[in-house]
């Protein structure tokens, strides 16, 4: 059964049709690349899946059950975690504090509940270990490299053992060596059975880690095929419209 299935999902903003009858199916443990030029509807699609706003038409199923999200928290409860484009981290807090932000581990002493720093440092350290990242739980995010920040953002998704991780341009603003680190992180998510949707502009990244690539152009899905049967040239042609459909 598909972890996530979109059936003829459309979204209009007034007269603008951002998405038109998009079908998309993500299986368990699958890494799917979602590509498209600026304004093709990628962000709209991500926001619908993340629960930022509902689709105008169409249905969304998780594990075969129809869902309606009105808030991001509801999507998270259903096992969807999002790594945002700008990473959405607090620079002034430690790596561990960011990982647990909004989901802090607490201990109870009589009526008083207080933050369990030790448990959070340890658990964050374990997650970074699993991700094979050099990130240290006590370091402030503000002194971290792009790759380390990415690891913190991804570590956040590991707290709840989600079914699906949506990553919005995770390699957009980081150095080449850090890109390799992030791609490793994505492979690690796959190894542990998490489905990943990778939204990216960068062709090599998609071809390095994804099994399948879906291409959006002007709100329509124009291709959805295994990476092995495609090529960067073909995908580029699909994105720009030189090739109509594949």
């Amino acid at each position, binding site marked *: 059964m598909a972890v996530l299935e979109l059936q003829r999902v459309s979204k209009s903003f007034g007269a603008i049709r951002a998405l038109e009858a998009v079908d998309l199916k993500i299986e368990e443990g699958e890494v799917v690349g979602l590509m498209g030029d600026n304004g093709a509807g990628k962000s709209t699609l991500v926001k619908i899946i993340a629960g930022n706003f509902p689709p105008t038409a169409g249905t969304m199923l998780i594990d075969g059950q129809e869902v309606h999200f009105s808030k*991001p*928290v509801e999507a*998270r409860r259903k096992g969807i975690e999002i790594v*945002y484009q*700008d*990473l*959405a*981290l*607090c*620079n*002034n*807090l430690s790596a561990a*504090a960011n990982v647990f*932000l*909004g*989901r*802090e581990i*607490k201990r109870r002493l009589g009526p008083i*509940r*207080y*933050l369990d720093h030790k448990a959070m*440092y*340890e658990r964050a*350290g*374990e997650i*970074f*270990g*699993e991700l*094979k990242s050099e990130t*240290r*739980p*006590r370091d402030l995010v503000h002194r971290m490299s792009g790759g380390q920040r990415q690891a913190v953002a991804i570590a956040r998704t590991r707290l709840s053992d989600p079914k699906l991780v949506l990553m919005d341009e995770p390699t957009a603003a980081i150095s080449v060596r850090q890109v390799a680190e992030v791609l490793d992180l994505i492979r690690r998510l796959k190894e542990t059975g998490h489905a990943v949707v990778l939204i990216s502009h960068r062709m090599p990244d998609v071809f390095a880690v994804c099994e399948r690539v879906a291409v959006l152009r002007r709100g329509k899905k124009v291709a959805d095929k295994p990476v092995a049967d495609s090529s960067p040239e073909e995908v580029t042609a699909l994105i720009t419209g030189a090739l109509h459909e594949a």
Partner: protein
Amino acid sequence: MSESAERRSVTDISDVTSQQSSTGLQRIINTQPFWVFVALIIICVFMGTISDTFLSERNLFTTTRNFAFMAIVALGMTTVIVTGGIDLSVGSVMGLSGIMAGITLAAGYPLWLGLAACLLSAMAAGAVNGFLIAYLRMSPFVVTLGMLAIARSLALVVSNNRMFYQFGPDEGLFLAIGGGRLMGLANPVWALIVLTLVFMWLYRYSTWGRHVFAIGGNMEAAKLSGIPVERVLMSVYMVSGLMAGIASFLMVGWLGSVTNALGQTYELQVIAATVIGGANLMGGSGYAIGAPIGAALVEVIRNSLLLAGVDPYWQGTFLGGFIILAVLLEKIRGRRME
């Protein structure tokens, strides 16, 4: 593979824990309150050598009491500034809540009712600030500037420009709480010590404190993480009002009378103490211990200038200069970090 990954994560943790113990002291040395504290000690030693009165028990007693009021308000201000806001209304809120306490007690009501009138009116003013800032997304500067005028005017309206100096059946207790002493320290200083410990705990161990710092660091991220940003922001301004109310209650008891001018221009000293204590006006960083240390420095310098015979008219110049200097130092430090 999984075994090596496990071993690695274990060494990672021990690395981190050992690293933490070696940098514990370093962490303290890297904070602004530490250096301000050092400066404070140097000034005290210097003043002690050139003035006989400075280190006298009497002068120390009055100095610590004077900065206790300021520091209590600065604890609330620090919290507001950590979220990236500012509360210009604290002085006026002290005036309003002091009048509320005075008028309630003067009418013959018991002390607890006077205290309730004082703290509730102060928190109500904070709640109005917080609501407009958190839910209507208005600028903290403008909202609290408006409240500065409103609360002062309400104090005038309520008091009808009268002075209150008779505080009903519990007068003795009321004056003793604000004006008395315990084991050599003025009561407001004890209140400050307790409140500072409470705020240190809140900043470090409460979810609320964690969320306050997260909002100051990146409000969007805090929101996406599911933190109730509006509720936390509103509570922060209510806490600021509450601290102004507590300081006002103690101050009126110490002074033995209250007029609507109580706390006038106090916001300036409080903001100076907060900024000198290491709170960053851009939000995201601040220290509970910075409030008493910053307030102590402001008061000690004021006291030293008086003892040195400097014309008191100069005090505003020094105070303003220190605010600007503290922000300048913060800027230089921030640049060096990048």
